[in-house]
């Protein structure tokens, strides 16, 4: 019936900012119940939580944790960008907002990675 656009039309900063925001949001929505479940183990005593935390010491889990932190920082920065676009008066600096969002999320994730 009708056709949508392909990457030639979508390839601009605002669109990429949206893709990052949506994908990070979906991933965080999937992660959140697991995160809560894991912390809930503390109810069964510090030992259960500790044994779970030792499980997370595996390199692959560490890497996934780093990814989740990156996604959280990206979603945070992208969300601030949306709030700014919707609630502040703006003209020409909307593209810089996407860059600022990217820079922040990378910085936060790097800080986390260096601490690991």
């Amino acid at each position, binding site marked *: 019936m009708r056709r949508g656009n392909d990457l030639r039309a979508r390839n601009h900063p605002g669109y990429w900012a949206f893709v990052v925001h949506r994908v990070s949001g979906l991933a965080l929505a999937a992660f*959140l119940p697991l995160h809560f*479940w894991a912390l809930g183990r*503390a*109810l069964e005593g510090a*030992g259960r939580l500790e044994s779970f935390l030792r499980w997370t010491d595996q390199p692959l889990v560490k890497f996934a944790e780093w990814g989740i932190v990156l996604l959280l920082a990206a979603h945070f920065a992208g969300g601030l960008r949306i709030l700014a676009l919707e609630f502040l008066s703006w003209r020409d600096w909307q593209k810089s907002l996407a860059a600022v969002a990217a820079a922040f999320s990378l910085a936060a994730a790097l*800080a986390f990675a260096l601490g690991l």
Partner: protein
Amino acid sequence: MRSRAETWLWIAQRASAALLALCVLVHLATMIYAVRGGLSAAAILGRTRGNVAWLAFYSTFVLAATVHVPIGLRAALGEWLGWRGRSRDAALVAFAALLAVLGMRAVLGVFA
């Protein structure tokens, strides 16, 4: 009217986003601090057990996420899977309840 309810969802989404922005900032800072030298249950629980400030903070965090996440999923499900209508909204209410229960259970778990 439907558009009125949908407008309230938008308001709830933006208000919870503003609250979550503050929470996430604190959470990121705490995480970056806490992982130095490795995570341990003793260190986490030492911070949180009996601390009413952390209890209030994490309760706010969990409830704001409970509002924010299902509304965001609502748009994604409609646009990318074509899932709209009552069944979608009922499923999202159930997901919100799951987040609230698991989240508050975790908050109480590290407090008590």
